[in-house]
């Protein structure tokens, strides 16, 4: 298993198209979904996902074998998402507020509008209101099914901190989703 993965990595490093295509097939979707959950803009998520994959290929030499390929990719994607979100307050003219975009913009995004049902729409709206770190933990845990250990690696946190973020994120989500039901 590990041998096959190492061989795959070597093929990617050598620039073998088949190996790179396999990488893209396996990871483009999850990385894009994660970024979509983080930035709530499919077009920006698409761009960021591509940037993440290109950065991954460019910095493949720095990849340590003991980390999982998936964790490393999500780490790159997470950093890109944080950079993107930290640039959000500079767009205050666009939204007419000095608060960070993730905190104040509660209008339904494309994701929420396209959501299959009302519940999913509520979840996406509530997700937008979470702080980025909590949002990241929740998405990585429930959508990407990463373990808390992996989440801690991606976010550069202690495992206990990742668990605490998850717990408080669930609590906040519940609160936000219930608040939406209020008239």
């Amino acid at each position, binding site marked *: 298993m590990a041998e096959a993965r190492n061989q795959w990595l070597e093929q990617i490093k050598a*620039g073998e198209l088949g190996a790179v295509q396999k990488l893209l097939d396996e990871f483009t979707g999850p990385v894009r979904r994660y970024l979509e959950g983080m930035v709530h803009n499919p077009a920006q998520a698409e761009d960021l996902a591509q940037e993440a994959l290109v950065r991954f290929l460019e910095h493949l030499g720095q990849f340590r074998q003991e980390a999982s390929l998936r964790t490393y990719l999500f780490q790159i994607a997470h950093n890109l998402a944080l950079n993107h979100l930290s640039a959000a307050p500079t767009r205050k003219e666009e939204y007419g507020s000095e608060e960070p975009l993730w905190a104040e913009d509660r209008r339904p995004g494309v994701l929420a509008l396209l959501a299959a049902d009302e519940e*999913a729409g509520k979840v996406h709206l509530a997700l937008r209101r979470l702080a980025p770190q909590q949002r990241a933990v929740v998405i990585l845990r*429930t959508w990407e099914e990463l373990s808390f250990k992996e989440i801690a690696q991606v976010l550069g946190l202690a495992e206990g901190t990742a668990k605490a973020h998850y717990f408080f994120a669930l609590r906040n989500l519940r609160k936000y989703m219930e608040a939406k039901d209020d008239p």
Partner: protein
Amino acid sequence: MTHEEALERLVCQGPVPLEALSHVESCAPCREELRALGKTEKALRRARPVLSAPSRKGTVLALESLPALARRRAWPAAAAAILLAGLLGGWSLGRLAPASAATTAPPQEMALSEIPWAPSGDDSTLSLLQAAYPVAERFSAVTATDTGNFIEAE
């Protein structure tokens, strides 16, 4: 153990301390919140967006970054090839130099001075070429007026 500590340990799975379990068993608000958090978690999982096929744009961009990757990887190989070529060139020159001396020259090789039509004392490229191709030398000597005579003669 506080309500929060007990709930956090139960929500985040892993080994649950008995203390947390016994707290929740005896605490109705905690049980209620645990149920609610479980529902929220399920709603989150259901709201997971369905993956669409990877876009071609992404594939193209990623593949575009590959030549740069390959170039970087090709550098050591190219440097090694140049070094090897240099060493081989140097080695063969070293082999040729003593070969021009009459003592070690193999029988199929001949010193320039031994070639009867070789130019003596002039080692310019043109004269060497003319020496190597005596027919060409004859043709190059044919002037415009000579050409007529040449054709006439034929």
